[in-house]
């Protein structure tokens, strides 16, 4: 008997228990805080961005008058393409006017020639593209779905009110009243907007027509370049450093430098890319190939570090076993070490790719910020990139671009979540016990 009961806590034990309790409380509140921040972020982005996926359209019949669109009557594509959007614009304006008259909708103070102002300036270009793609439409009457102007669209998304419209030279309260009447008649509808994902960017005055098409294609092309270059180079470098390189001062130096490179601000890689790939090698600006190369440089150290960690984590007994039955060093690495390190390598790879996908700064320097209207035909054509498109839209004046930028962030996040899901799937698939 030491004289003290086990049931009585001494002061030291009580103090230790209190310290542990405090530490748990700190940890728990840190998690709660982080979760709240995440939820707040998601709610604000989803709230601001979701409207970008819905758009206001006006649907009405348009007669494609052959006399205006194909004066020669030959149907020759060269001749057809000489007809400008102004002609199509007039056609659309007349058609809308006719539709409003035919349905007997009270236009109020809105003059007939102001009807077309309710449509996006993009709609005439859309119609022209449709006709050029299919000249047989000429002479027919088609049902045309035109984008409403950004202000009308904003009215249905809560951005534009009667009061703000009174002060706005782009829209009048009377037009909003007319829009409501058109909506009642079913001419004006609010529907899912696939164009947000497929259309190119649009100019400052046409937020309603701006889409992510080129940015998605550009980001995809860049990721292809990054994947094709950084996976083999990164894995080969890691395998060499981990399995073959002698351990001496030089490899130590290389190791320190790789760790440092992973911490270099990404914009530095942009300057490097500008100097080497564009100024020295003469590659085109704004091209996915250059973006991909710059992002590869940036991603390489971030792939090499987890790959080396994955190789290091393979138990040495497996190497011994392979060497012991007479496998060469190369066979040991390729038959046993690499397959076991695969889940770790793939995870590192995909996280590196995800970082590259979200990288903006280096792309600004190599001209990916340019306004691009034509879809890139390959790696050497100008293109945009998703994160740069977000940056681009946030700098524009029209309030319609706020929802566009948030919508683009949603698309970017969706891609990142998809990539992480792939990483988790691959990790599960390749994971093996030993």
């Amino acid at each position, binding site marked *: 008997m030491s004289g003290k009961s086990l049931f009585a806590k001494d002061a030291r034990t009580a103090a230790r228990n209190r310290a542990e309790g405090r530490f748990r409380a700190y940890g728990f509140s840190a998690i709660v805080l982080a979760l709240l921040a995440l939820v707040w972020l998601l709610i604000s982005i989803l709230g601001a961005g979701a409207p970008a996926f819905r758009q206001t359209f006006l649907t009405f019949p348009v007669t494609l008058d052959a006399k205006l669109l194909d004066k020669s009557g030959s149907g020759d594509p060269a001749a057809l393409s000489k007809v400008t959007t102004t002609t199509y614009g007039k056609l659309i304006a007349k058609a809308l006017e006719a539709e409003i008259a035919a349905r007997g909708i009270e236009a109020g103070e809105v003059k007939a020639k102001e009807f077309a102002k309710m449509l996006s300036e993009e709609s005439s270009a859309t119609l022209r593209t449709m006709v050029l793609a299919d000249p047989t439409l000429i002479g027919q009457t088609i049902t045309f779905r035109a984008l409403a102007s950004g202000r009308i669209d904003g009215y249905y998304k809560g951005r534009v009110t009667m009061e703000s419209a009174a002060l706005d030279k782009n829209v009048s309260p009377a037009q909003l009243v007319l829009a409501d009447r058109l909506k009642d008649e079913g001419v004006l509808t609010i529907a899912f907007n696939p164009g947000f994902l497929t259309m190119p960017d649009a100019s400052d005055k046409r937020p309603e027509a701006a889409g992510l098409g080129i940015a998605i294609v550009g980001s995809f092309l860049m990721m292809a370049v990054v994947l094709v270059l950084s996976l083999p180079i990164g894995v080969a470098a890691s395998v060499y450093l981990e399995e073959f390189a*002698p*351990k001496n001062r030089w490899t130590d130096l290389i190791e320190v430098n790789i760790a440092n490179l992973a911490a270099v601000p990404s914009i530095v890689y942009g300057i490097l890319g500008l100097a080497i790939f564009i100024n020295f090698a003469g590659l085109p600006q704004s091209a996915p190939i250059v973006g991909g190369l710059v992002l590869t440089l940036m991603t390489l150290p971030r792939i090499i570090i987890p790959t080396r960690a994955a190789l290091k984590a393979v*138990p040495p*007994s*497996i*190497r*011994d*076993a*392979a*060497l*012991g*039955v*007479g*496998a*060469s060093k190369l*066979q040991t690495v390729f*038959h*046993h070490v690499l397959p*076991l390190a695969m889940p770790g390598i793939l995870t590192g790879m995909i996280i590196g790719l995800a970082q590259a996908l979200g990288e903006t700064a280096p792309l600004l320097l190599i001209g990916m910020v340019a306004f691009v209207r034509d879809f890139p035909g390959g790696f050497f054509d100008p293109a945009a990139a998703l994160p740069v498109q977000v940056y681009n839209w946030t700098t524009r004046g029209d309030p319609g671009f706020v929802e566009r930028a948030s919508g683009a962030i949603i698309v970017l996040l969706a891609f990142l979540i998809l990539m992480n899901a792939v990483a988790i799937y691959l990790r599960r698939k390749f994971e*093996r*016990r*030993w």
Partner: protein
Amino acid sequence: MDIETVKIKADKVQVFYGENHAIKDVDVNILDKTVTAFIGPSGCGKSTFLRCLNRMNDTIPSCRVEGRITLDDEDIYDPRVDPVQLRAKVGMVFQKPNPFPKSIYDNVAYGPRIHGLTRSKAELDEVVEKSLRRAALWNEVKDRLQAPGTGLSGGQQQRLCIARAVATEPEVLLMDEPCSALDPIATAQVEELIDELRTNFSVVIVTHSMQQAARVSQKTAFFHLGNLVEYGETTQIFTNPRDPRTESYITGRIG
């Protein structure tokens, strides 16, 4: 004695780990078709010396081997020797069972495959069966050759590793404390197996258990602080040691 042939001959072997002189002046003749046990306290260099015999120490950059080790009168440290070929002739079983995370069949077939020992699938099947039989594992696994080797029990895994090592038809089999991670029943099975392997191979076994050395070996070498103190017939070492250090060790006074 003189009708037995010398398989491995070590002559004034020195091993250094950087500045550390781990093995000093070891001379030993390892006989063919004999089990030779290396005993000694921890850190005495017996495993280091064992790993010199198939050049596994090459993988440690700071390790340096001097002196001469011959296998069938060929110097294994000659620059013309490729350690990969050497290791096909001198197989090794490690302390901890280390099957590849592959099927039982692939574990055994790996050596023959990389050395191109078989010409057809049927021939490879034969080699696998023969090796598993030699390792006294065939009856336990013949119905599940495609099951993962890592799913076997510890003793079965170690016998699988032995099967993998004998599948390349080595001439010498090195075993580095093969039973230290096994329970007594598995140990008894592996010991029995070692005795059978003697008919085909020269076996060198490092062990911490003196009883094991006495049970399985014909020759015993006692290492102490990097020196080969005494080498001779196992019965002689255990009943009538010539060196006082050997006597102290086997009676449990040093270790």
